[in-house]
């Protein structure tokens, strides 16, 4: 149980937080043949584009309504229409995902109303899916933008259906899952003979692969058609608390039940997921995963010596913080500092004394004396100043390779994470020295050393 505190500073120093619209844009990047677009100044898109490009080492499909000063003040709704027509003409996507920004929300553009009229006057674009999500920069954080975009997609695209396809399951995944996590999730569900629709699926688009031909839109991801048919699945499994509103929306729209798992890492979390899939499919848990479970247990046995009592400082968005923080707690480590970006019902349940909604300056101030610092690449300066071990987690990771392929889901994910972090902590262990155990200074009864008269 922890106290949730909001920092009271006027000036944010070394932000941990990133903005909502690009969180929404990344969610749209998990849809096949999609062009995400920010309704804002062209810089809003450019910053997000550079950020994702450096994180994924991939070309990033992302457009802008390129709001000028005049358009911003007079209202920029026409820019949306012009942009849609221009994108449709040049890149012909199946779907355009539109996120608003601070610029257009300050003016208060009624985008939804505009899109309705636009639809009516452009029947030739009926095949093009348009999903809009309101994501002002001056509210909430990246994770919220992702969650709202997924909710908007469910509301806008999923169709009510009374038919249930046997062996079909939906996954709604939070922004804390990497491409590798999603790939693992798909493999696991296939091992139970289930057919999974994963929304959004950045493992299809952002996993770094060589496409056969050039496309300016996303290279893969959840097909729009699959989203429309999500109502036909037997069950929806939401991963991450941030996915609850989307799961609720899907249930309201299609009458479909859902379960939510707030963790993806660790033995218990994986047990629950596999047990759920086993019951759903009526298949026993495959031998491969029983073997992997046993490997994870062994990894925990080998590794726990290096986790016990270690002090960990974490800066991450709520769902990632919850997932990784709870796992450290399982391993006997102590969450000595926890900083996050936005509100979540999970924060109060964190196994630490306090969770601060703040920035990396706050985390740095609290991380002194810790054994390990965990946050995204922007923590590198703090880690260097503090001289402690540093593990990059979250987004962006722009100074290391393979961010999309870091796995923490499932038994394998937890096993490898145990080794990776165990090794980091092992390397930190100080060797004992002759002066490692000094006596207290005020020990007046001590003899003077060999005092000669």
């Amino acid at each position: 149980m922890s106290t949730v505190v909001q920092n009271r500073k006027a000036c944010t120093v070394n932000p941990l937080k990133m903005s909502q619209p690009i969180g929404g844009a990344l969610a749209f990047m998990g849809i096949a043949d999609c062009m995400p677009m920010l309704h804002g100044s062209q810089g809003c898109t450019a910053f997000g584009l550079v950020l994702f490009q450096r994180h994924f080492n991939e070309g990033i499909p992302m457009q802008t309504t390129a709001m000028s000063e005049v358009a911003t003040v007079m209202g920029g709704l026409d820019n949306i229409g012009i942009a849609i027509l221009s994108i449709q003409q040049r890149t012909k996507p199946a779907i355009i995902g539109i996120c608003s920004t601070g610029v257009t929300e300050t003016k208060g553009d009624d985008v939804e109303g505009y899109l309705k009229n636009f639809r009516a006057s452009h029947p030739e674009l009926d095949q093009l899916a348009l999903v809009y999500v309101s994501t002002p920069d001056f509210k909430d954080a990246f994770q919220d933008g992702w969650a709202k975009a997924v909710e908007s997609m469910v509301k806008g695209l999923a169709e009510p259906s009374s038919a249930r396809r046997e062996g079909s399951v939906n996954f709604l995944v939070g922004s804390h899952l990497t491409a590798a996590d999603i790939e693992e999730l798909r493999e696991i569900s296939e091992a139970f003979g289930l057919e999974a629709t994963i929304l959004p699926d950045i493992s299809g688009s952002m996993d770094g692969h060589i496409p056969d031909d050039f496309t300016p839109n996303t290279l893969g991801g959840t097909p729009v058609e699959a989203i429309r048919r999500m109502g036909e699945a037997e069950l929806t499994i939401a991963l991450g608390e941030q996915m609850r509103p989307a799961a609720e929306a899907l249930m309201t729209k299609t009458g479909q039940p859902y379960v939510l798992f707030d963790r993806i890492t660790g033995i218990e979390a994986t047990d629950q997921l596999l047990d759920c899939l086993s019951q759903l499919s009526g298949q026993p848990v495959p031998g491969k995963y029983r073997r992997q479970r046993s490997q994870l247990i062994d990894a925990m046995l080998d590794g726990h010596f290096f986790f016990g009592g270690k002090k960990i400082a974490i800066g991450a968005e709520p769902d990632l913080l919850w997932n990784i923080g709870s796992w450290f707690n399982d391993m006997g480590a102590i969450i000595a500092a926890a900083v996050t970006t936005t509100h979540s019902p999970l924060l109060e349940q964190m196994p630490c004394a306090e969770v601060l909604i703040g920035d990396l300056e706050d985390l740095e101030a609290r991380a002194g004396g810790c054994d390990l610092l965990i946050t995204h690449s922007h923590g590198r300066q703090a880690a260097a100043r503090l001289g402690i071990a540093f593990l990059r987690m979250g987004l962006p990771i722009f100074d290391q390779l393979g961010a999309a392929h870091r796995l923490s889901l499932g038994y394998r994910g937890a096993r490898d994470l145990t080794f990776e972090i165990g090794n980091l902590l092992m390397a930190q262990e100080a060797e004992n020295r002759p002066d490692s155990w000094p006596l207290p200074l005020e020990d007046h009864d001590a003899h003077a050393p060999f005092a000669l008269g």
Partner: protein
Amino acid sequence: MLQNKIQDVFNEPGCGKNQSKSDKERKKGCTKALQPGGAAGGCAFDGAKIALQPITDVAHLVHGPIACEGNSWDNRGSKSSGSQLYRTSFTTDINELDVVYGGEKHLFKSIKEVIDKYDPPAVFVYQTCVPAMIGDDIEAVCKAASQKFATPIIPVNSPGFVGAKNLGNKLAGEALLDYVIGTEEPEYSTPYDINIIGEYNLSGELWQVKPLLDHLGIRVTCCISGDARYHDVAQSHRARANMMVCSKSMINIARKMEERYQIPFFEGSFYGISDTTESLREITRLLIQQGAPEELRERTEALIAREEARAWQRIAEYTHRLRGKRVLLFTGGVKSWSVVSALQEGGMEVVGTSVKKSTKEDKEKIKELMGQDAHMIDDLTPREMYKMFQEARADVLLSGGRSQFAALKNKMPWVDINQERHHAYNGYEGMVNLVKQIDLALYNPMWTLLRKAAPWDIREARA
């Protein structure tokens, strides 16, 4: 106010491209109208930040919602030889209440916190779209804060929606001219003092040139803005000559310093061997014209002869491997003709070069170098570029990060020559390094493995 400023920087008499326009064209400014659904570049705020962030010891405070700073900080390779404060990120991260009630007080408090905690010689405050829309007067806040805290607080009024990156570069220059340059006097000055304007010390490439100048006894009193200190910028008006690099991004600084402080300037580049030589000669010529002893010329020529020979000798080791290799050069701001000549010096053939930001003279120079049928590309869509490499019409791509995948995804080599690069390409050293990097990229044995089809694909093709 801001509109007047923008008209003023658009009407830049020092800019060749600008002077060749009609009055009407000039009023429209030097950036094309942005096309909704088809624009790709950074905004004016981005441009202003790029231009000033390399000033290392000041606090750069961004007044706006989290997007403007949170999504972009510490992402450029500008290096510092001292203070690291420029890599600490400061933003007001305004919220809904600020949008409703105004963010001026929030900004003022933020400035106070920054000064209390970090005690910088100055704070630069960047305006962004949202506070500009709600009418936050950052000039007024900065003025009040400067007085209250007895520290220069510099407003940089370049919100994103006023235009593209290039305009932001210039508005940043205006902020320096209005609030910083000439506000302090140096302890002493020498006849060998110069400023370098428009050099950002990416990957530390200023340090590939500085030893040459040090050797000649030429003092870079200030580089605007790579590895700069606030006080150096404030005192830069006492230099004897200015060199302006990086095309036209900060021409307003060079020209207005000439107007106000009679500092002559020339436009030069340290990209390429002949350009480096030319620039050293120009620096020397201007310094002598301004009163430095004649003997500087002789020493400069001796250094040029020695360093050119040393560079050529090292490049010659690669020429036989690089001869005839076809390069597609796709640069943003870097003057493409100067790199073209350097690549040709290395034996390579430039099959195309972008001229998006080049002036008429630049284009003439490219024609001179590459012949009348020079393949000059105004704008190449990603799809066209991808096709070029798919059809192997070039052997290697030299470009910025955004277009890298046109080559890489076709299993063709790419060399990064833009802001985020890891290698330094300035001066004689830099050109040797560029040739080395191209050689490394081209001759990596990996390419052969990647281009081979999988065994089953070969078998299936045969069947």
